[in-house]
């Protein structure tokens, strides 16, 4: 494992809005090359954390270091010039500007640094996101949600950033778009871009990120590898374990007593098929079970309670049902 450089560091950051303090001393580190995620319930402070890193929300106490510089007092614009890029909450593409104009704006910092590189970078981004290439001259407001997400990400990449901050990018996106986003983010990270993402969608995050920072009420309560987590542990870390745990256990118990579902098959990559229902759609691929998780298993279940829907849920069960699941998967 090569020596990993510290790219971003928050030291005991306190911040808030008006009279309300939201962050009560947040410390975290992001290393070059990784995908780090900040998880938490509504109101835990994950979005505010990202906004203090971005420079949009002022810090009341503590420090932020980025690329070996203390950026605590720097403006948002100055941080962008240092190599920070944003995929804001809600994507926030410029609706009346064309796709290309949006990308060009993303390159503002780049063009001031080194105008000559612009054409090459633009080409690269268009190649990576073919949908943008085909919609080059369309106003960004006419793109679908998923396409706008691609545009927001492409726009962020135009400045050749060291770190990309992604704020709840999956919110409001249809499942297929979420899946595409997931793949794209992974690819972008593999090409060397460090990503720090804030997410509500726990499943999505657990599949994508290397490192998780879980927040509760303005402080970090877990900081470590994603591989050490499972959904139950996440639930308890998020602060809802007590009640939810009760129900998770009750549900697990009740399911143990039920006969194995017949026409439902679950594959290792989580796609649910149900012969009795006319429609279904794939859910984001889970991480392959071959890696470090001891109790990984895909388990799918459908229920018809009067309304039509297909559901795939990845769950960990108390007993090693993994073996049975995997058997079903290959079947």
């Amino acid at each position, binding site marked *: 494992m090569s020596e990993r450089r510290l790219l971003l560091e928050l030291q005991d950051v306190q911040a808030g809005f008006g*009279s309300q303090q939201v962050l009560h001393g947040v410390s975290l580190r992001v290393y070059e090359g990784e995908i780090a995620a900040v998880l938490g319930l*509504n109101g835990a402070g994950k979005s505010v954390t990202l906004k203090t890193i971005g420079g949009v929300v002022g810090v009341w106490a503590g420090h932020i270091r980025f690329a070996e510089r203390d950026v605590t007092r720097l403006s948002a614009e100055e941080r962008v010039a240092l190599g920070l890029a944003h995929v804001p909450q809600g994507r926030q593409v410029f609706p009346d500007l064309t796709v290309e104009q949006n990308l060009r704006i993303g390159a503002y910092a780049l063009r001031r640094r080194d105008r000559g590189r612009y054409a090459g970078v633009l080409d690269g981004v268009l190649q990576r996101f073919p949908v943008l290439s085909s919609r080059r001259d369309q106003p960004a407001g006419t793109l679908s949600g998923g396409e706008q997400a691609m545009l927001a990400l492409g726009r962020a990449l135009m400045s050749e950033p060291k770190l990309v901050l992604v704020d709840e990018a999956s919110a409001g996106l249809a499942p297929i778009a979420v899946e595409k986003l997931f793949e794209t983010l992974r690819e972008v990270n593999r090409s060397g871009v460090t990503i720090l993402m804030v997410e*509500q*969608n726990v499943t999505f995050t657990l599949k994508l990120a290397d490192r998780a920072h879980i927040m509760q009420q303005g402080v970090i309560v877990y900081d470590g590898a994603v591989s050490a987590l499972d959904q139950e542990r996440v639930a308890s870390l998020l602060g809802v374990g007590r009640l939810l745990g009760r129900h998770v256990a009750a549900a697990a118990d009740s399911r143990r007593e039920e006969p194995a579902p017949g026409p439902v098959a679950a594959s290792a990559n989580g796609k649910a098929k149900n012969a009795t229902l006319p429609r*279904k759609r794939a859910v984001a691929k889970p991480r392959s079970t071959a890696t470090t998780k001891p109790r990984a298993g895909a388990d799918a279940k459908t229920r018809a*309670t009067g309304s039509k*829907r297909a559901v795939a849920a990845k769950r960990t069960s108390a007993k090693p049902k993994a073996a049975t699941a995997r058997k079903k998967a290959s079947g």
Partner: protein
Amino acid sequence: MKRGARYVAVLLVCSALPPILGRAGVLSSLRSVELSIAFCTAAAAISLNIIMGYAGQISLGHGAFLGIGAFTSGLLTLKGPQVPFMVGVLAAAIAGGLFAIVLGLPALRLRGLYLAIATVGFAFMMQESLFKWSRITGGSAGIEVPRPRANAFVFTRDYDYLAIVLAMFVLFWALDSNLVRSKLGRAFLAIRWDEPVAQSFGIDVSRYKLGAFVLAGALGGVSGAMFAHQYQFVNSSTFDFNNTSLLLVIIVVVGGLGSRVGATIAAISFSLMPGLLSWLKGWDLIVGPVLLMYVVVRHPRGLGAAMRERAEARARGSKVVTAEQSMPKLPAMPRPAAVAGRPEVLPGAPLLEVLDVSVRFGGLQALDGVSLTVPKGSIVGLIGPNGAGKTTFFNAVSGMVRPDAGAVRFVGADITKSPPHERVGLGIGRTFQLIGLAKDLSVRDNFLLAQHLFAGYGSASALLALPRATRVERELGERADQAIEALGFERFRDTPVLSLSHGQQRIVELGCALVTAPDLLLLDEPSAGMSPAAAESLAERLRDIRDELGRTVLLIEHNIPLVLDVCDEISVLNFGRILAHGTTADIARDPTVLGAYFGEAVVA
């Protein structure tokens, strides 16, 4: 009665002083004129303050109403019928009010900047057309306006007329004071803070906005008449746009939006300043605007907001720490007489029925054939990820959004098309995620606001502080105090809601919602911002509401454990469709719930 007597006394003293002082040689004619104009300006400022300060609607063309009133009174007292002064003034009020309707009706559809432009357009239209209609108004030559007369005595001397001006000013002051203490004033302030919140209190926002315009226009007309009889002359440029309309805006903004005292002081200062600084010729028109810009920059949300901000800052230092405040028991308020006529529903029978409702916003189908039934006496939870359509659903039930298809029935009656402010009267109460209170008002004022529908008196009673209004207000006040005591919030009675912690605000909000004796309570993310312990306390209170108070609850929540804990039935919503519905036991075993909770994309 004591208040009324006080005002009468002040009025008598004020009107007696100038003539006496004038005859004694103490008060010169010149001074009288200056004071007269100063108080006329103050009266005009008070009238503008009603629409801009209280109701929060921008009005940049107020000079038009002054002109309308001036010409009306002037013409009627000068020509033709040569009516007495008081009749002229009354006519000025009526004319101002009528023209305000003309401006107000289109203004209802406009907001913010566009409203500002509309008021400018209105003023310009008046200035360039009506006021220049020489046949009637004499155009730039203008008309002479006679001084008032009482039988043989004419108020020719300026100190005599000053008495009339002061008397009228005291009347304005009294009217304004009555306004603010009545349901009218509270309604205006609620509208200024947030219109959907005002509607949830049962306030017909359109009607009240129009009312504010009419009141401001009528009083503006009267103040214009007062000017006219002082100058004894009015022409098309007397109340021109820059010198009147815009100057009044400066006065009201500098003086403090929403402050009668501030507006008066600012008006008098601006009026007297040129005289006082006569050696600095022309500087008043430089100092004034600079002062305006300074005030605006220092207090961007208006001086009224500056006071709120000060309260907030004070609160930041001394906020009552509620580390883990458990929610107090919510008050069991007796049903007010006004709701006695509501039909009853048996427990378990459907109280609210949402039938196949669809809502579309542009290209987005927010709700797609959603059906839900809430049985009386139950707590029903609605969960789903962000963007699922939960808030749209609530808006359809509370009336903020009209469904494109489907129906909403409450106690069997179809309410799909009834406006939001009516639904409170029907028995549907609502809370908001960001706390649906008029936050710049005190806790007590909010409890008074919550009883808006039970304030059984009219505008005239309100403005004149008639016995009926006073009596009803006292009753409302008693109920408010009862509720505040039941919550244990006596020490916060006069605190602006803004200064309370989020949890305390939520308590007040729930208390206010219950004061209206609703049969159905719509709670929008009530546990937002609460610690898990506080949420548990909330859960207990919700059970109280169902069991002890006999209400029915429908709640939107992100806090799944709370929902599983407290609800009798749960519906899961995503992509605008109901995905699952059942008892807690069913849903708890359903991976749909966990999926929704963990943000898994749950698909139909």
